[in-house]
């Protein structure tokens, strides 16, 4: 049973995600997590400002339940199924990250520089989290889906639009890491 405490290799994780997508189809739903962000806008009253948020959000309640499950799953996975959460990334990547000032690389699950409690009082860290979040929320709705909706569901259904979106994801991600990171870190 020791394997369960270790990080799951890709050949376990990938089939598990495919299983999640399949189970959602089998209960009559589609896998896509970013729709929830729109639903949350509607619940907060965004329908007053834009037609885009005027829809029957109750029909999307199932997807909010999936989100609640994802939160519980994070709790279970980290508290009961993991002894050491440090992520063993490539030593070259660790060296890169240390050069950028990320001392926690190779020793933690998330960089403490951005995700420990001190980040909330550090203007730069807080600003980066806010900008990152806004880009995720704006981009994912503009593109009509995120990693789950396009890279997983869309590509699995051989949708050409999803392939364009995934190319976009990589153009954006590569630009951020290779061109923008050296300027901000």
């Amino acid at each position, binding site marked *: 049973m020791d394997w369960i405490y270790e990080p*799951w290799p890709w050949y376990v994780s990938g089939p598990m995600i495919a299983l999640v997508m399949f189970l959602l189809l089998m209960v009559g739903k589609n896998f896509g997590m970013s729709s929830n962000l729109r639903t949350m806008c509607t619940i907060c009253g965004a329908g007053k400002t834009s037609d885009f948020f005027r829809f029957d959000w109750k029909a999307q309640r199932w997807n909010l339940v999936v989100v609640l499950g994802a939160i519980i799953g994070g709790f279970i996975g980290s508290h009961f199924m993991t002894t050491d959460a440090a992520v063993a990334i490539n030593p070259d990547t660790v060296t890169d990250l240390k050069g950028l000032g990320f001392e926690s690389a190779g020793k933690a*699950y998330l960089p403490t520089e951005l995700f420990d409690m001190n980040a909330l009082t550090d203007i730069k860290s807080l600003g980066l*989290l806010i900008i*990152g979040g806004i880009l995720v929320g704006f*981009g994912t709705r503009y593109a*009509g889906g995120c990693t789950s909706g396009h890279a997983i569901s869309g590509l699995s259904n051989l949708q050409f639009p999803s392939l364009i979106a995934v190319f976009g994801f990589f153009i*954006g991600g590569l630009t951020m890491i290779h061109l923008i990171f050296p300027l901000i870190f």
Partner: protein
Amino acid sequence: MRTVSYLLIGIVFGITMFKSEAASWFRIYEMFKFESFHMYGIIGSTVIIGIVLVQLIKRVPIKSFYGETIQIPPKAKSFSRYMFGGILFGLGWALAGACPGPMFTLVGVGYVPIIVVIIASIFGTFLYGLIKDKLPH
């Protein structure tokens, strides 16, 4: 009963996101540096198995567990929205190191600052709703 099934599927998804390390900012950085096969292995194997399962559902008329016909809506045709929206999402994905599934998983793990990312992403979605008619789609 159905609600319980959605919750259980979500829990399996959350555990998988954490244990696969797909919810780790470091794995996303490493992926965009092309310094590990890990994330490509996850996404690649998911998609290959996903293609087989979706084709099976479409060709063999499999009914859902509740006896309904399974609907898989096709994506609308467009270039600009997928490309421009995708690029913006990619910039955020690499910066925050989290996409909309894992960011919720990380709340359960106990990272408080991820809540800032979630609130900002809800606000980002709201901004899109405000100006969507002015954007190329």
